[in-house]
C-alpha cells in the first residue's frame, strides 16, 4: 500500500512538473523552472507564475477532487458506475456557476461563482441519492443521472443563448467539456478552499465506507452513523466537484476511470481507494491537460474531449460486464 502511495505521488509530481514546462511560449524547462522559483524581470516569470502555475495547480486539485468524489460515490452507492459527470452532479454544478456569472451575481463578488456551483452540485447529489439510494439499484441511478445531466446542460445552454453578449453562446462548449486554459491565481483562490473542504469530508468517510461493504445493517451495528455518512458524501462531493466546475467547467469521466483502474491495486477496500483515487485523478487530469496542449497547441481543445475518449470505452466495457454478471 505504501508502495502504491509512493508511486502515485512520484507520478503526480512528475506530471505537475511536465505541465509547468508545457505551453505555446518557447521557454526552456530549466529556464522556466528557475524563473518560477527565483522570479526576475521580463515576461518569463510572469508566464510561469501567472499562467502555467495556476493551470498546473488547478489540474492537480480538480483532478484529485473528481477522482475522490468518484471513489466516494461508488463506495457509498456500492455501484461502480457512479461518477459525478455521468450522474449529473458536474452538470448541476456548472449550471449554478453559469447562473451566477450570467445572472450578474459574480460581478458583485467573485465568490458567488463557486458558491452557486456548490449549491448546484449539492442539490444534484441530494436529488440523486433520494432517487437512487436503497432499492433503486444501478440502473435507476444511471437513468436518473442522465436525465439530470441533460436537464442541467439544456438549462445552461438556454441561459448562455439568452445572454446579450454575442460571445456567451460560444461558452457552452467550455461549460460542457471543461478547460484549464488561461486560468489565473484568482481562480485557484476561488476553487481551492471549497475543494479542500470537500477532500476532508470525503477522505474521512473511509472507515464508514469499509464497514458499508458488509451491508447497511452490519455497518450500523459497527457504530457507523448512516445519516451522518450520507451528509458527508453529499456535502463533500458538492464541494470537491462544485469548486472545480466553477472555474474549469464540466470535466467528465475522471471519477469513473480512476477508481476503476486503481480498485484491483487497493484490495477493493473503499478507504484505500479514496486517497489513491485522489492522487490518480490528479495524475489523469494533469496528463489530459498536457495532452490537449501538445496535440493541438493552437486549438484550445477542451479537456472533456480527452477524458471522454479515455472514459467512454471503459464505461461501455463496465456496462457490458455488469450485464453479463446478471446486471443492474
Amino acid at each position, binding site marked *: 500500500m505504501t508502495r502504491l502511495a509512493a508511486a502515485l505521488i512520484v507520478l503526480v509530481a512528475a506530471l505537475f512538473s511536465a505541465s509547468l514546462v508545457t505551453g505555446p511560449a518557447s521557454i526552456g524547462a530549466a529556464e522556466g523552472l528557475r524563473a518560477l522559483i527565483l522570479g526576475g524581470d521580463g515576461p518569463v516569470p510572469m508566464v510561469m507564475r501567472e499562467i502555467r502555475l495556476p493551470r498546473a495547480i488547478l489540474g492537480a486539485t480538480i483532478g484529485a477532487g473528481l477522482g475522490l468524489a468518484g471513489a466516494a460515490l461508488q463506495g457509498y452507492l456500492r455501484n461502480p458506475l457512479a461518477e459525478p459527470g455521468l450522474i449529473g452532479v458536474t452538470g448541476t454544478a456548472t449550471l449554478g456557476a453559469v447562473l451566477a456569472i450570467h445572472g450578474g451575481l459574480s460581478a458583485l463578488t467573485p465568490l458567488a461563482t463557486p458558491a452557486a456551483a456548490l449549491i448546484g452540485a449539492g442539490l444534484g447529489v441530494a436529488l440523486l441519492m433520494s432517487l437512487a439510494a436503497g432499492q433503486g439499484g444501478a440502473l435507476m441511478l444511471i437513468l436518473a443521472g442522465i436525465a439530470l445531466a441533460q436537464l442541467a446542460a439544456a438549462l445552461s445552454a438556454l441561459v448562455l443563448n439568452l445572454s*446579450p453578449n454575442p460571445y456567451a453562446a460560444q461558452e457552452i462548449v467550455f461549460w460542457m467539456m471543461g478547460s484549464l486554459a488561461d486560468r489565473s491565481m484568482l481562480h485557484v483562490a476561488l476553487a481551492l478552499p471549497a475543494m479542500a473542504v470537500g477532500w476532508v469530508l470525503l477522505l474521512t468517510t473511509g472507515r464508514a465506507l469499509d464497514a458499508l461493504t458488509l451491508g447497511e445493517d452490519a455497518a450500523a451495528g459497527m457504530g457507523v452513523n448512516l445519516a451522518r455518512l450520507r451528509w458527508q458524501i453529499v456535502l463533500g462531493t458538492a464541494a470537491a466537484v462544485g469548486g472545480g466546475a466553477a472555474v474549469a467547467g464540466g470535466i467528465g469521466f475522471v471519477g469513473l476511470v480512476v477508481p476503476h483502474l486503481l480498485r484491483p491495486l487497493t484490495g477493493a477496500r473503499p478507504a484505500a481507494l479514496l486517497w489513491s483515487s485522489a492522487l490518480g485523478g490528479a495524475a489523469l487530469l494533469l496528463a489530459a491537460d498536457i495532452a490537449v496542449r501538445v496535440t493541438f497547441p493552437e486549438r484550445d481543445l477542451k479537456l472533456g474531449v480527452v477524458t471522454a475518449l479515455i472514459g467512454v470505452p471503459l464505461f461501455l466495457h463496465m456496462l457490458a460486464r455488469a450485464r453479463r454478471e446478471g446486471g443492474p
Partner: protein
Amino acid sequence: MSGFRRISEAVLAGVLALVAPAAAEPPERVVSMNLCTDQLALMLAAPGQLVSVTAFAQDPRQSAMAAEAAALPANHARAEEVYALAPDLVLASDFTAPATLAMLRRLGIAVETFPAATSLDDVAAAIRKMGSALGREAEAEAMAARFETDVAALRADAAAAPRHPRALLYEANGYAQGSDTLAGEILAAAGFANAADEVGLAAGGMLSLEQLAMLAPEAVILPEPPPGTARGYELLAHPVVQALGAQAVPQSDRDWTCATPHVLRAAARLAEARRKLP
C-alpha cells in the same frame, strides 16, 4: 402541395421579373440585410431609396449610424421579412447565409453581395461598388476620393512619426489581428507596428496569453466589452494582460468592423494614443 408551391413561386418570380425595372434604372426599394452594407447604403442612398436596414444598424454599440438607421424599419436578415418588404434590390455580405440569399434570388429579387473588407483599399472599393449598385456613382466617387485623400494624409503623418511603437490588436477569445486585415491597416495607418506579425499572424489568428506575455507589446488595443459577460472577454482581464505594463487602448467595435469612412475615426483615435506614448 409542393407542386402548387413551385408553380406559384415560378409565376411570382415571372411577375416580379416583369415588373422589376431594367438594369440601367436605379433601384427604388432597397433592403440591406448586413450591418456593413446598412451603413454604406445609409451614406449613399437617395432619399426614400433605402427602405429597411438590419436591427444591428440601430444598435449604437455596433453601428456608427444608429441614429440614421432608427428612422427606417429594421429587418433581421430573414428571407421572409425581406421578401415582404418587396425590394427590387437586396444588399448583403458574402457571409450572409447562402440559403437565405438563394431563396431571395429564386423569388426573383436582385441580390448584390459585398465582400468583407480586409484593407483600406477595400473600403474605397466598397464605397464605389455601393454607388454603382444604388445608381449613385457620382456621390460614391466623391466619397471614395475624399476617403483616399484622408488615408494618404494619415499615412504620411504616420510615416513622419519619430518611432512606431509595437502594438497588438487583441480581441475576445484571444484573437489577434495581424497587419493583413482591415483592423491591422488601421493600426498601421495610425503609426503603430503590429506585434502579431512577429509570430506569423499577419492574417490574424489565435494568440495565446503566454505568447502575448512573451511579445510584451507597448500598447494593447482591446475591444469595448458588450453588455453581459462572456468567457471570451474574461481573458482580456487576466492579470497577465493587466501586468504587461502596456497601455490598454479600448476601442468600440462600431468604427472598426465595417468598410466605411468611419474607420478613419478609429485610426485618428489610435494615432492620438500613439502620440501620448512616452
